[in-house]
């Protein structure tokens, strides 16, 4: 991929972000609920008059026409000010940055867990196709992909937190012992999916002509697997891995809620419940940005790894 193309892609990312910001802004506006009342409702024992509500609405600029509100927001956003969160009484950017490390740690840990299991299992069951091992892996992964995240999370909590008491059931903070269960939950479900993916991809590569060619040249099976098949099989897997990781960086809402893990997914759900729309807007943009940046990185690495694309400058 040439530099010019990379700049072109970055330009696209900016355009898409603009579009997404407009659409989310509009959707939040259209959705029921009044952020001003929501803010004030926090202090139920204080009676607030309509005049005060209107004053606050005016102060926040929420009485202006929609398009002006959007342009106001955009003008500040390009300067790095994504507004103020009513819910946590902090600038949106600050709150995002505070939740980001937790999400990043969870994403890395669960991806690592996934890779450690899915790569060896997938490769081995492809090589030993139709063996007992292969059938066992296929059966288990079938269960794995069918289990919902939240159920798996609750079961793990019940077993390791309540019954065995090995791990804390109260989350809300980032530490190694609170990380284990959410990372395992996400990891198991992903590992099931990826084991199947790795198996399919490796099987597909094992049927390629170059494998027949290598056998006809008398290359050893381990050479064929490690030097020929796996490098080819990695190419499609990198794309998938990028998408999954991008997904995780946007926060794994369900799992984060089950374990009260203070990451972006948790924050996103809270901000929606409280109609804290500046914060919702910030999170949505962050998720979109992560997706697109990771996609770009995947495309660039794909180009570096596959000579066919590299040489053609695609």
């Amino acid at each position, binding site marked *: 991929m040439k530099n010019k193309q990379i700049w072109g892609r970055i330009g696209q990312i900016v355009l898409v972000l603009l579009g997404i910001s407009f659409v989310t802004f509009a959707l939040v506006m259209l959705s029921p609920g009044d952020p001003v009342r929501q803010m004030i409702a926090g202090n139920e024992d204080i009676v607030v008059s309509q005049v005060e509500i209107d004053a606050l609405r005016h102060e926040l600029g929420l009485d202006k026409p929609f398009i002006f509100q959007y342009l106001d927001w955009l003008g500040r956003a390009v300067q790095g000010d994504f507004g103020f969160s009513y819910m946590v009484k902090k600038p949106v950017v600050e709150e995002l940055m505070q939740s980001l490390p937790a999400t990043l740690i969870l994403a890395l840990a669960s991806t690592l867990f996934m890779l450690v299991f899915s790569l060896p299992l997938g490769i081995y069951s492809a090589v030993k196709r139709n063996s007992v091992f292969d059938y066992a892996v296929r059966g288990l992964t079938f269960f794995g992909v069918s289990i919902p995240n939240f159920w798996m999370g609750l079961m793990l909590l019940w077993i390791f937190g309540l019954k065995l008491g090995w791990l804390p059931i109260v989350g809300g903070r980032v530490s190694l012992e609170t990380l284990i269960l959410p990372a395992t939950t996400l990891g198991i479900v992903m590992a099931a999916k990826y084991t199947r993916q790795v198996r399919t991809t490796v099987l597909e590569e094992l049927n390629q*002509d*170059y494998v*027949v*060619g*290598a*056998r*006809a*040249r*008398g*290359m*050893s099976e381990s*050479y064929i697997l490690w*030097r*020929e098949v796996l*490098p*080819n099989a990695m*190419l499609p897997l990198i794309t998938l891995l990028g998408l999954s990781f991008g997904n995780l960086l946007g926060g794994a809402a369900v799992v984060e809620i089950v374990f009260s893990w203070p990451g972006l997914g948790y924050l996103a759900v809270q901000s929606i419940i409280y109609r804290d729309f500046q914060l919702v807007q910030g999170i949505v943009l962050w998720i979109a940005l992560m997706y697109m940046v990771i996609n770009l990185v995947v495309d660039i690495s794909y180009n570096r*790894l*596959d*000579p*066919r694309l590299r*040489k053609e400058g695609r």
Partner: protein
Amino acid sequence: MLLKVTDLDISYGSKATVTGANIELKKGEILSIVGESGSGKTTVIRAIMGCLPGNGHVSGGNIIFDGRNLLDNTPQQWREMCGTEISMIFQDSGNMINPIRRIGEQFIDYILTHAPQISRREAYDLAIKMLDDVRMPNPDNVMRSYPFELSGGMRQRVGIALAMTFSPKLLLADEPTSALDVTTQAQIIRQIVDVRDEYNAAVIIVTHNLGVASYMSNKIVVMQNGMVVESGLREEIIGDPQHEYTKELLAAVPVVGGKRYYA
């Protein structure tokens, strides 16, 4: 007799693909197997290499090569023999090497697999010499190239260079010219004949082109529906075909300038 295939039966699962095939070949001879697609010709040479795809297996008969029965080979023995004593070129040899690695790396790895005692440098020099031998221009460049960067004819030359590296006694060629244009076909055919002359190797060439078969071979085997329907010296098959199918094949060769194009 270098190769003697007797009553060879090959099945995929329980389905018989080739039945009762007999082939005999001496050193320095070129034998063509002709027949339509699906007649089992490729399957036969794959069996001789011990690399039948999927669930294919030899279900009867013998393959005696250089005094030993190949069907008794262990996987280890197959690996030692393939690429050294018997080697193979394919319809598109470029597809038979890894698309995302340089030709040079793969060539060197191949040489070092069968000759672990030599250095990388020596392996490189040997690869260059082999590419030179098949009249490949700029062998250094070829070594640095990826398969997709070469033309069909050049890829086929790389295939022949790879195949001849260890001076095999038997070269198997699976439709080696079918994917090439006519000019390149002629070059590759001459190349294979040269290789036979130079290394005194026996060659089995699988083709559906009777013109190619009659141009280059000493013997011709005609296959139909998994069975050898006729076999013999080139002159006998071309001059005096006995089987109906052989006659049909001969009649199907296009007429150019008033004469059929297989003499």
